């Protein structure tokens, strides 16, 4: 029997551009053309001023560690505990949930406000997840 796989996102018409972006190696955010608000998760209008004139742009992929837990039990399918579930504050402002790779999953190694950069993990031909690793240099 195959190992249980991690939960896989299923894009909607409003989020497809985000998942197309991760497949292309880009972290895409949206900015309001009217009030310049940058926001996440994706939607075709600005949650700040309600304008429908919004643009998709490629984010820097840089951010900092806002907060996290190190999950021990119960572990989600496809994960080997202990593993960190992190919230990353992107340099552009929005925050997103992710995992921290290339880093021990310990309180000592995972320091709040540490600099992070995006890394892409391909799940299958349709879905690539945005993960983060400690920024180099």
């Amino acid at each position: 029997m195959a190992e249980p796989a991690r939960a896989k996102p299923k894009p909607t018409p409003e989020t497809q551009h985000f998942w197309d972006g991760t497949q292309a190696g880009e972290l895409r955010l949206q900015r309001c053309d009217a009030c310049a608000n940058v926001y996440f998760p994706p939607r075709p209008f600005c949650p700040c001023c309600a304008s429908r004139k919004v643009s998709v742009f490629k984010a820097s992929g840089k951010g900092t560690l806002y907060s996290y837990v190190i999950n021990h039990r119960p572990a989600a399918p496809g994960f080997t505990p202990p593993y960190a579930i992190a919230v990353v504050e992107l340099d552009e402002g929005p925050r997103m949930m992710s995992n921290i790779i290339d880093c021990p999953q310990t309180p000592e190694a995972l320091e709040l406000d540490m600099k992070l950069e995006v890394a892409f993990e391909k799940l299958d031909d349709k879905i690539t997840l945005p993960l983060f690793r400690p920024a180099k240099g």
Partner: protein
Amino acid sequence: MRRNAVAVVGAAETTELGVIPNMSQIQLHADAALNAIADAGLKLSDIDGIATAVETPQQIAHYLGITPTWVDGTSVGGCSFMLHVRHAAAAIEAGLCKTVLITHAESGKSMIGKQPRSTPADSLNGQFEAPFGVYGPPSMFPIPVLRYMKTYGITHEQIAMVAVVQREWAAKNPRATMKAPITVEDVLNSRMIAYPFRILQCCLVTDGGGALILTSADRAKDFRNKPVYILGTGESVETPMVSQMETFNSSRAFKVAGPTAFKEAGIAHKDVDHLMIYDAFAHLPLYGLGDLGFMPHEETGKFIADGNTRPGGKLPLNTNGGGLSYMHSGMYGMYALQESVRQMRGIAPAQVKDATISVCHGVGGMFAASGTIIFTNEK
């Protein structure tokens, strides 16, 4: 809403709490409802308004044989029942119904007649949280706490004291699930669940239920129990995604619901004799004390660690033992309300002497929703 215009005249929990393998979820609702109706000295046919969460109002109305003229199925997580109380009070005031039954029950432990919770893969949570390994509340609810601790200088030992103090309250309560005393060391050495939280900082998982009956204050004086009046109410929601909270340093839903209720009640924090803050996890009382305006967030950890909320302290908090030690069937808000009502009636196992104002504050989801009810026994 007018102060003290509506009162709780019936309140009861299920006959048993804890592990109830001989009852389905819907029967737990009925058990609690029948107990509350008996407590009020009413008949089922007297009920003309019904509110419940997770289970639908039509399910509960049909099972109990009630034909309501007012219905509320607000289902925003564990504080749904605080919102039901608020909505019911408004409905009774508006003349939409006279006598409202609010029920909660959950076969949280035995899982009989209960649908498992699921997250569709094309929902926002399914796309932007589930793929990163969240798996149930213990992996999600504590995510903000490390940020909160860093911002306000709160220590692991201070948060451990939340569990220690609530166990002191539980020891006074024969119906509490966990009664044996614990120390900060016990908490910090207990099994790791999701760092920084260990099992003694996570709520219990049990079976049970509760029900409330509300009517107008004018009618309440004719009932057998001492009426418990609704003095103030508040509610709000923020986001179903914990990662998308405005900040991890407070809860926006708390900051709307709590102060709205205080303003409506026309009371100051020093007037509060008894306080319930829904504690699915040990950090919630700290967020609640800060966001409801009892003190700056920086002082919340020390306030609890210094013993101010323990038996004999100046602000008795979670006097039934809370979700950490009393019981937690999945949607604990109903049990917090039950304890506030007991305290206002003067019949709580750990009764706060001469208490006249009780604040009951609930959370739904992972800081997704909030409801606050302020009760008094003085009209």
